[in-house]
């Protein structure tokens, strides 16, 4: 029995079908991150878990108990909002203690709990201020304090960092991660930011248009996407996607990426059984930028490297890395190379493709072409992985 089980949940606002049967199960202590483009229903799902929106269809189980019809205050959850939603007429201490006060916790105990939460978040010196006298980061901490102080079973965060500037956002991200590790709480967290999703989550749920696209560990969602949408949505810079023809060469299955002025043939090593059926047909190939490198920094131990000579179209240094853009199969392909590599546009150089990380998609349905065994290894990594739909 999982700790939080969202079972075939639907949401309709009148005629609009916003959530179309979501299935997610997580364990105690998990950090579930919901990601997806704007309007895909992340906040709606979170509000339904909180009890702020009614569930149109389906079941919500917390700790084995059906909580569909329980009032928000009886669900033993706490929520941190994007706008922080602090009560402007109360002091910081009043804000943090309001939930306890409503639950008739005696004053002395309340003060103790407020003090403890404030220490944890390092806002003891702000307890007597009003929210208007706080900076954005401090307000964020107060909002977290208000959630922490009640020691609920489940925390819900709706884009809590999106109103902070870039530097503070990174700091708070680290802090939330530390808090999660220290307190071992269960968290459901909504974000737009897929770096936030990758760094914080123990489980990621990628959503689109009210449907769950994939649920899995950050690594599995990143390395083993279920479909083209997930592949393109996760990761920055995003995955290189290019059309290729699957053919047989000297008895082995290969992918041929051809365009007017060049051609690259890559051996197929992953999902080989499934791709047999695609022989002499076009597929969409996906390769992450870090799986295309210069030969010197290629990882030959774990990967399977195949080299090809290509022309450099553009060089983008970021300091830590050097992104090199080349043209392949009519598309721009981004490769991550060692910084300081002496490359300039127009020059030809050798690119090393790690074909063991290559994934293929059906260009029509956009679904992943994947071996049965490959899919099962992913599921056994975590038995609770439901909802592998699409």
């Amino acid at each position, binding site marked *: 029995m999982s700790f939080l089980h969202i079972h075939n949940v639907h949401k309709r606002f009148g005629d609009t079908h916003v959530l179309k049967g979501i299935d997610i199960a997580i364990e105690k202590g998990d950090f579930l991150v919901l990601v997806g483009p704007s309007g895909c229903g992340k906040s709606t799902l979170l*509000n339904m878990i909180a009890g*702020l929106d009614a569930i149109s269809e389906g079941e919500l189980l917390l700790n084995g108990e059906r909580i569909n019809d329980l009032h*928000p205050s009886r669900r033993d959850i706490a929520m941190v909002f994007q706008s922080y939603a602090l*009560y402007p007429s109360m002091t910081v201490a009043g804000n943090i203690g*309001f*939930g306890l006060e*409503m*639950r008739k916790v005696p004053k002395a105990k309340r003060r103790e709990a407020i003090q403890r939460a404030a220490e944890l978040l390092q806002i003891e010196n702000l307890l007597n201020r009003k929210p208007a006298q706080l900076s954005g980061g401090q307000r964020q901490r107060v909002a977290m304090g208000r959630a922490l102080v009640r020691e609920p079973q489940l925390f819900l965060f709706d884009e809590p960092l999106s109103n902070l500037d870039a530097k503070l956002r990174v700091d708070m991200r680290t802090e939330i991660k530390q808090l999660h590790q220290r307190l071992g709480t269960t968290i459901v967290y909504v974000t737009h930011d897929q770096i936030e999703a990758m760094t914080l989550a123990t489980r990621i749920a990628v959503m689109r248009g009210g449907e769950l696209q994939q649920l899995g560990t950050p690594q599995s969602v990143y390395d083993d996407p279920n479909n083209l949408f997930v592949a393109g949505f996760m990761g920055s810079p995003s995955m290189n996607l290019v059309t290729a023809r699957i053919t047989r060469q000297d008895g082995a299955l290969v992918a041929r990426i051809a365009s007017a002025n060049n051609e690259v043939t890559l051996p197929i090593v992953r999902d080989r059984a499934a791709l047999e059926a695609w022989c002499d047909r076009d597929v969409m190939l996906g390769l992450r930028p870090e799986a295309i490198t210069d030969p010197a920094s290629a990882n030959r131990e774990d990967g399977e490297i195949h080299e090809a000579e290509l022309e450099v179209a553009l060089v983008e240094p970021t300091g830590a890395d050097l992104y090199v853009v080349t043209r392949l199969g009519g598309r721009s392909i981004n490769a991550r190379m060692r910084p300081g590599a002496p490359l300039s546009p127009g020059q030809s150089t050798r690119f090393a493709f790690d074909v063991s990380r290559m994934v293929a998609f059906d260009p029509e349905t956009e679904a992943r072409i994947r071996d049965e065994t490959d899919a099962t290894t992913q599921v056994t990594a975590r038995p609770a992985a439901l909802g592998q739909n699409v």
Partner: protein
Amino acid sequence: MSKPPSSRGFGERLQHWLPRLVLSPSFVLVLFFVYGFILWTTYISFSNSGMLPDYTWAGTRQWSRLWSSWTWGIALHNIWVFGLLYIVTCTALGLLLAILLDQRIRAEGTLRTIYLYPMALSFIVTGTAWQWFLNPGLGLERTMHSLGWESFSFNWLIDANMAIYTVVIAAVWQATGFIMAMFLAGLRGIDGEMIKAAQIDGAPAWKIYLRIIIPQLRPVFLSAIVVLAHLAIKSFDLIVAMTGGGPGNATAVPATFMYSYAFSRNEMGIASASAVFMLAVIAALIIPYLYSELRESRS
């Protein structure tokens, strides 16, 4: 602003002067008819004026006559009773109606319009309508009698002790919708996430209003009270239309006092003194309010 050099064309010079030209007549008129007459009235209140203006200086004679006048005492007492009841009832009812309308009920648009309509009527119409309605021989009481409720009696309008409350009822009826609209706008401005947070915190609806929403409406309360206070002090037409200040002097207020002393009792000096006093009270209310509002909007 720099002086326009003569080398500029006619069009440019016109553009420079046109706004001043257009505004200056109204500026002169306001200067003369508003501020000029304020000064004139103030002077008259220190003069010997009776039926006609008389510019001989009389010191504070008119002022001491005003303050020893029995009717002025009644007028002040009435404005207190009227103003206090009017402001408190309007604010409380307006807030209550706004909260009820804020529950996302279906007919909200229609109801809001219905509540706002009275504000569109002039005070004279309101006063006359309520005078008919509360007149024992014409309105409510007579209707009840003709419906068979013979013992029904509601004669506050002609009862010297109660007449002032009928004015309060009519004035509240007129202004409540407007105050409700002010509160409704304030309620709509409150962050919905805050209410969700309070729900999760376990606060029942009445506590959410009491502890979280109403404290945030403080600026609306302030505006409502200032608007109502100056309406109360200016409440002249309503009383004239409804009771004419009577029965006797029972519903006299400073505005009707001033009017009757200036135009029927030929005591211009006392009337001016009472007018200046009213101006001073309104100014004491409005100026700090405007000052704080302007300072806020600037920062």
